């Protein structure tokens, strides 16, 4: 019964999406408000039906209704409750429905938010958003339907269960955050197409686009950071970023989105760069759809991607359509978007932002090229040539370091022109700090990118610290405030500016963490009970190997004592080797999985992996990695999120 309603809901939503688009077009043609209201209600109905369908699928997953093929494929009775919910986005059709669900929630908010305003552009906004919904509804109805019944002439007693790699609590948050980011870019894109179509780009439009941009960018950023956290905690290779095609798919729109966040400030303040910003919005949204294509088409092999499917050409067609229509419109509206103002000086904040934009785009292109190169090489030469992490690191590390430098330089530049005196005054101390750091690391025999990265980090932190210091000092003098109150009010009264600085501090901490990767060390060994091994001044002693049967897996647990160079015990680690689906009579369906145990400190992580166990000879095979400064990446991530929230938080009282 419920699967039927779910199927019907997406059928009906598909029909209503067509109706909504047609009604809006007719309204634009003859201006009869009844058509607008009816079209908007149809759009609302499309969203509500899509949300209903998603809730129905969630209910089917929770109640283990194995009559539905998707439920039987991605859950079992043993699957814990939380992972029955996360199974919603674990498979192809479910994840497409979840994409639609997210977009539908956004569409409802957009409609409700703009009931009393922006009526001139709203029909176009709804046409664009509903067209994107229509695309996903076509896929869900005709290509990958999550409500298809199980093809079996017998009662399915139990489902196959969820992939153990996805049975990690981060998976409850990482994909929804990514979706909120990816899908959310539809809103600024829709508003931009609408503004170009109607030649109406006023300050209200700017407010809407900027706020949405910042919000969806934050969601995408959190999604990417959580993805890195999940990879680090779950995949067992000791890293958080592997330049995997699907990781790159989320990173590319993040890069262009970050460029856009900077350049749109110039549009808001100076009424410049409108053509550039429109192009960036189009590219960012297209990259979001392209990323969805990469994950689902099967053209790339990745730990994150779904199995090969027929979705690829359809997605590529949609990407092509978006690019052609959007850029034709942009070309047609070029004269409306062009500004008479020009950048006045090379040493202005405008040129700093523009330069940062160029660097972001170069980096995005490098990632894009490396990502699609295997496909191009296969198409041209018939052999798939994969470019791995060495290529991406070689190209992106220098570009990343330039961006890090700009993170420090940008805030010290002022609008229009930076005076020579302020240039010298603002940059002297940070440059001295950067050089001093370089000297210290040089003496410590550290060279190359590591030295540059630490020196630039010191330079940027000093520039930001200097900015805070001067702001606080200014308030202390002019407002007679104590340093703590001055610090608090400085941020509260300039949220956008100082929120941005906090984000920049977060980025510096992340760079410190990335750089720590250069000092990683690792060792693989087999141990019998009571034996020890040594790595980087630590000893690892195996004192027990236990076995435990749990509801959805069977676990072998290695109990280890870690001691420092003086022999003092510092921690006990318990990495596990798990066998999922261990009750399955078919041994091929039983899935081994290594559950890590990590001892984290601010200085480094001790990362332990239980590779395998030889029960006959009582040997546990383990891998230990010492990963310096990893936690700085996560601390940077927290600050990054905090800073964006500060910038996003609306002021208590606005000037009226």
């Amino acid at each position, binding site marked *: 019964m419920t699967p039927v*309603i779910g199927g019907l809901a997406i059928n009906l939503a598909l029909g209503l999406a067509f109706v909504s688009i047609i009604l809006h077009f007719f309204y634009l043609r003859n201006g009869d408000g009844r058509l607008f209201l009816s079209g908007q209600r149809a759009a609302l109905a499309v969203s509500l039906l899509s949300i209903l369908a998603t809730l129905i699928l969630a209910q089917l997953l929770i109640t283990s209704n194995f009559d539905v093929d998707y439920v039987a494929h991605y859950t079992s009775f043993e699957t814990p409750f939380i992972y029955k919910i996360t199974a919603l986005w674990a498979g192809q059709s479910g994840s497409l429905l979840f994409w639609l669900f997210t977009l539908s929630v956004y569409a409802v908010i957009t409609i409700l938010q703009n009931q009393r305003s*922006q009526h001139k552009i709203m029909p176009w906004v709804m046409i664009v958003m509903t067209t994107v919904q229509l695309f996903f509804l076509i896929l869900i109805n005709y290509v990958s339907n999550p409500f298809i019944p199980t093809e079996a002439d017998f009662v399915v007693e139990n489902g196959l269960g969820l992939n153990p790699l996805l049975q990690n609590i981060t998976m409850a948050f990482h994909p929804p955050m990514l979706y909120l980011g990816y899908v959310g870019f539809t809103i600024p894109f829709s508003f931009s197409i609408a503004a170009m179509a109607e030649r109406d780009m006023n300050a209200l439009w700017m407010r809407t686009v900027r706020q949405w941009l910042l919000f969806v960018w934050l969601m995408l950023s959190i999604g990417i950071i959580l993805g890195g956290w999940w990879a680090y905690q779950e995949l067992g290779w000791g890293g958080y970023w592997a330049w995997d095609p699907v990781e790159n798919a989320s990173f590319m729109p993040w890069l262009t989105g970050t460029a856009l966040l900077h350049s749109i400030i110039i549009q808001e303040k100076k009424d410049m760069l409108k053509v550039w910003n429109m192009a960036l919005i189009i590219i960012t949204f297209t990259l979001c759809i392209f990323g969805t294509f990469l994950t689902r088409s099967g053209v790339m092999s990745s730990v994150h991607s779904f199995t090969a499917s027929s979705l690829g050409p359809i997605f590529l067609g949609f990407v092509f359509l978006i690019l052609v229509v959007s850029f034709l419109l942009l070309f047609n509206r070029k004269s409306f978007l062009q500004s008479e103002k020009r950048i006045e000086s090379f040493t202005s904040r405008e040129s700093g932002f523009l330069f940062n934009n160029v660097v972001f785009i170069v980096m995005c292109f490098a990632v894009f090229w490396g990502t699609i190169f295997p496909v191009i090489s296969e198409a041209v030469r018939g052999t798939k040539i994969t470019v791995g992490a060495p290529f991406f690191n070689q190209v992106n590390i220098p570009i990343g370091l330039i961006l890090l430098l700009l993170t420090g330089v940008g805030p010290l530049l002022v609008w229009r022109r930076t*005076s020579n005196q302020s240039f010298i005054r603002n940059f002297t101390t940070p440059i001295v700090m950067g050089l001093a750091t370089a000297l210290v690391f040089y003496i410590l025999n550290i060279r190359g990118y590591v030295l540059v990265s630490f020196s630039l980090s010191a330079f940027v932190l000093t520039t930001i610290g200097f900015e805070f210091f001067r702001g606080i000092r200014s308030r202390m003098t002019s407002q007679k405030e104590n340093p703590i109150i001055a610090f608090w009010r400085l941020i509260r009264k300039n949220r956008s500016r100082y929120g941005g600085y906090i984000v920049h501090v977060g980025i510096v901490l992340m760079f410190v963490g990335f750089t720590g990767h250069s000092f990683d060390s690792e060792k693989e060994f087999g141990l019998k009970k009571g034996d020890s091994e040594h790595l980087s001044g630590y000893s690892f002693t195996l004192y027990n190997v236990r076995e435990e049967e749990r509801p959805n897996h069977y676990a072998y647990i290695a109990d280890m004592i870690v001691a420092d160079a003086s022999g003092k015990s510092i921690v006990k680690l318990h990495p596990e080797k798990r066998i999922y689906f261990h009750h399955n009579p078919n041994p091929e369906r039983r899935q081994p999985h290594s559950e890590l145990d990590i001892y984290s400190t601010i200085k480094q992580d001790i990362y332990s992996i239980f590779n395998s166990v030889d029960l006959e000879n009582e040997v546990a095979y383990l891998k230990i990695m010492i990963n310096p400064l990893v936690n700085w990446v996560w601390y940077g991530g927290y600050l990054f999120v905090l800073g964006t929230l500060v910038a996003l938080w609306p002021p208590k009282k606005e000037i009226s």
Partner: protein
Amino acid sequence: MISFVVVFLMLFVMAAFVIQPLFLKPGLEIKDTEKSSAALKQRKKILYRQIKELDMDYQLGNIQDDDYGQTRNELKKEVAEILTILNR
């Protein structure tokens, strides 16, 4: 039977919800109920914020006297134009 009723109800409710506005008075005009000056007021807020930031940069010594005076005057001029329109 139940599925038939549910399906019928869903179709009926959705159709009624979407079609209902078409039965309103013909030629209905859609206007922004939020004041038409909302965009100008928003622009004014942006300009005030820019003046505040400019003053802060000046206080911090990031900007020269002549640049500060010229930029501030330009911003004030735009604010004055908006205020004139809003007060009409």
